[in-house]
């Protein structure tokens, strides 16, 4: 599986993502600087975590309008799998590739800890190797992970199975509506999540729960 990781000024998890992708897919991913206009021919495009543009204006707002995002939108439309983690999720929302927005955590504190994630939809390309309702563990590290969408968008997400991951009961770290931790677009190829699966891939991380997510994509692409 060929993959690319987009790097914005202020991204800081791109190395973790590049490492995870190479380890799990066996193919060295391509790092793409945000000023580029064309993405390489890949099966998966990842927008990594970090603090692009220092979170100025709104998290992900300026990166969401970067040069490369025009090609990300084109690839999304063509059906290529796109995944945004943490700041990458915020950027996908700001770019209009996913509905809703990630707001300041309800308790106004940066959260950095491990949380339980419940698989709300195991029929997506990103979660097919988990089972429905399974709770796995994954670290979160963010100040703006409070998912919000209009009542219409929220109803559509819930009705169409587009809520893919939820914080496990009692573990919502940021006030997200309906405990939402990850969503997918209606077509099923653009996925965003706040927690960091790339940091839960080998025994040194404490567990390998996040590896399953990458293995799901790998299987979907094969």
């Amino acid at each position: 599986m060929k993959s690319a990781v987009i790097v914005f000024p202020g991204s800081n998890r791109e190395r973790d993502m590049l490492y995870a992708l190479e380890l799990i897919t066996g193919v060295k991913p391509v790092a793409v600087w945000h000023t580029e206009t064309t993405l390489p021919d890949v099966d998966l495009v990842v927008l990594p975590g970090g603090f692009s543009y220092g979170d100025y204006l709104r998290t992900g707002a300026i990166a969401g309008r970067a040069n490369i995002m025009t090609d990300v939108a084109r690839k999304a439309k063509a059906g290529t799998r796109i995944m945004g983690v943490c700041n990458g999720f915020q950027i996908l929302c700001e770019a209009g590739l996913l509905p809703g927005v990630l707001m300041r955590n309800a308790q106004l504190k940066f959260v950095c800890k491990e949380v339980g994630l419940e698989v709300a939809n195991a029929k997506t390309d990103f979660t097919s190797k988990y089972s429905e309702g399974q709770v796995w563990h994954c670290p979160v590290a963010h100040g703006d992970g409070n998912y919000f969408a209009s009542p219409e968008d929220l109803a559509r997400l819930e009705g169409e199975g587009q809520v893919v991951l939820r914080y496990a009961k009692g573990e919502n770290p940021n006030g997200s509506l309906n405990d939402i931790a990850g969503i997918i677009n209606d077509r099923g190829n653009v996925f965003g999540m706040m927690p960091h699966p790339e940091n839960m891939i080998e025994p040194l991380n404490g567990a390998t729960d996040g590896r399953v997510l990458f293995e799901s994509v790998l299987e979907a692409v094969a």
Partner: protein
Amino acid sequence: MKARIKVTLKNGVLDPQGKAIEGALGALGFSGVESVRQGKFIEVELREQNREKAHAALDEMCRKLLANTVIENYAIELDEK
């Protein structure tokens, strides 16, 4: 031409920062504060001299970048001269 843009959270959107400010005002002894909502204030200087064109350009800037209309409202104010 100078413009002032106010970006505010829509009614019904939770504003934890506003709530924290409200709490701090209360802690300072300011009683009678019913509620606080915070937002952004952006000043833009434009070369454009035509008010109508300037307003149209600013409106597009707000929709495309300055505000996220999922959660925010914006108001544009142009200087008289």
